[in-house]
């Protein structure tokens, strides 16, 4: 302990404590990211790679139409599921593990607020999800590029010129589109929403298994929200449904996020172009979920006895 260090450390003490410090949050985020990377979460990505290569090889042996579409569907579907699982599993373990190992005590015994801790954790998982999505997108685009070439070749061989030309230009214009990138962005956003949801649940849950199960159930129920909504306000009419069912459906639409809205890749793969306005709305909705889940998670966590 040299005098120089004592002076500088004292200077740190003397500086006014900030309510929210990016430096502290970034320290937790990068630490979370590094911890997850060293836990080899990216081996997960290898499985993804194997799936898309396997599907590609399998498709090559079928002479069925729409192989390009199938490649897109499978890759986007696998990306949705992988990022979602990665988000839920990685997030669910974080808080219980820190508590069990008492690492949380050492962190919160430093001048770190519980809000900073939560934001840092979510940011760390988000970094993992961003990197995972980028890796998967790169692999996906390589495979897609290959199949685009193949499909064009097939069309030139089998279709009459006018139809082939129309179909080829349609494929060229319809494969690597901004909409596809937007769709991948929505997959990423969806996974961040899932991570925030899981983090919120783990703020009051007592075991990670509970967190995982409840998170997955909420996400699953999230895909049924449009049906719940149609029961009390759609053309099916609330009048048909018994009162208690209508109330239950209303509760679902209020407390469960509508995951189908984040499920636009099913449409994008079919070549429906989605306008920027819709993307903006989805982005806003996703950001809203993340902020609200973070806030509620903090409310649960702030009063929690450790």
């Amino acid at each position, binding site marked *: 302990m040299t005098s120089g260090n004592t002076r500088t450390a004292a200077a740190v003490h003397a500086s006014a404590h900030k309510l929210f410090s990016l430096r502290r949050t970034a320290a937790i985020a990068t630490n979370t990211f*590094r911890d997850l990377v060293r836990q080899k979460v990216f081996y997960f990505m290898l499985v993804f790679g194997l799936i898309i290569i396997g599907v590609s090889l399998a498709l090559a042996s079928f002479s069925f139409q729409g192989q390009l579409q199938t490649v897109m569907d499978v890759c986007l579907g696998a990306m949705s599921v992988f990022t979602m699982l990665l988000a839920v599993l990685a997030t669910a373990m974080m808080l219980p593990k820190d508590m069990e190992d008492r690492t949380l005590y050492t962190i919160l*015994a430093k001048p*770190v607020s519980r809000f900073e801790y939560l934001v840092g954790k979510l940011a760390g998982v988000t970094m993992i999800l961003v990197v995972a999505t980028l890796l998967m997108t790169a692999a996906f685009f390589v495979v897609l590029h290959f199949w685009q070439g193949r499909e064009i070749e097939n069309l030139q061989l089998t279709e009459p010129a006018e139809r082939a030309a129309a179909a080829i230009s349609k494929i060229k214009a319809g494969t690597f589109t901004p909409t596809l990138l937007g769709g991948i962005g929505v997959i990423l956003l969806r996974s961040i929403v899932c991570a925030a949801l899981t983090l919120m649940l783990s703020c009051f849950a007592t075991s990670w298994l509970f967190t995982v199960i409840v998170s997955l159930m909420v996400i699953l129920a999230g895909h049924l929200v449009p049906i719940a909504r149609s029961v009390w306000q759609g053309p099916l009419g609330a009048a048909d449904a018994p009162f208690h069912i209508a109330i239950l459906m209303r509760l679902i639409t209020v407390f469960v996020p509508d995951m189908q809205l984040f499920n636009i890749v099913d449409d994008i793969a079919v070549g429906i172009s989605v306008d920027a306005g819709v993307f903006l709305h989805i982005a806003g909705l996703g950001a809203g979920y993340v902020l609200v889940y973070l806030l509620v998670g903090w409310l649960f966590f702030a009063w929690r006895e450790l």
Partner: protein
Amino acid sequence: MSTPAITIENLTKEFTNPSVFSRGKVTAVENLSLTVEPGQVYGLLGPNGSGKSTTMKIVLGLVVPTSGRTCIFGRDSRDVESREAVGFLPENPYFYKFLTGSETLSFYGRLCGLGGKMLRDRSRELLALVGLETAADRRVGGYSKGMLQRIGLAQALVQDPRLLVLDEPTAGVDPAGSHEIRDLILRLKQRGITVLLCSHLLSQVQEICDRIGIMNHGQLVREGALDDLISIENQTEFVLENASPALLAELRERASAAGARVVCEQKPQQNLERYFLEVTAEQGGEKK
């Protein structure tokens, strides 16, 4: 008078019984008040479940009190900034096992607002202080119990705090490690760092603490300077070297003549711990 390092005023903590069937309350700490002055090494003792851990957690802001309040250097424990001046080593700490020792220190340093060269120097210095220089680049997952305890201590010291809170710092550590940790605490004390120590190892507490408090059933039952509490006022101990039997006989005689009673006379025994350390050092036992 300087600001006390720790002030605890009328502290009460009740936990709700988690069982759904009996929603009774459990009182962990009841109307506790105590003060730790700067520079003291304070030992908080008590059987399991006596409320000392809860008290410590409240001081650190990890648990919210039901009533009363605690302060660290005059700042309320519920304020995050109160923790700028405190370092904490929990019982049996684990750290992110995929980080190396030096990464662990730099992580905790960044949490305290340190960075850059200053942080690098500081963590090198601390690793030297706790004797982990050679293990700095090994992952914490491979550390022994004693090493974990030492990196924990280094972590607690990273921002050069004025107060150190240690929960069973030598639990599960072998005698050599335990001895080193004790020496380290004594060195920190010399530098003027206040220490709050919770421990079951009474001999160790006796060796290093200036002041102790004994808790039982959530209440502070005894509190004071160690010497005042345990010295026997009407007795005196001599230890003589190379005393002849004649001298001893003379002393006995003089004592009884003066009206004093010899309570006990024996060969002082070497402390087992010191003996163990000497033997293992002779064998060239490697420090762990």
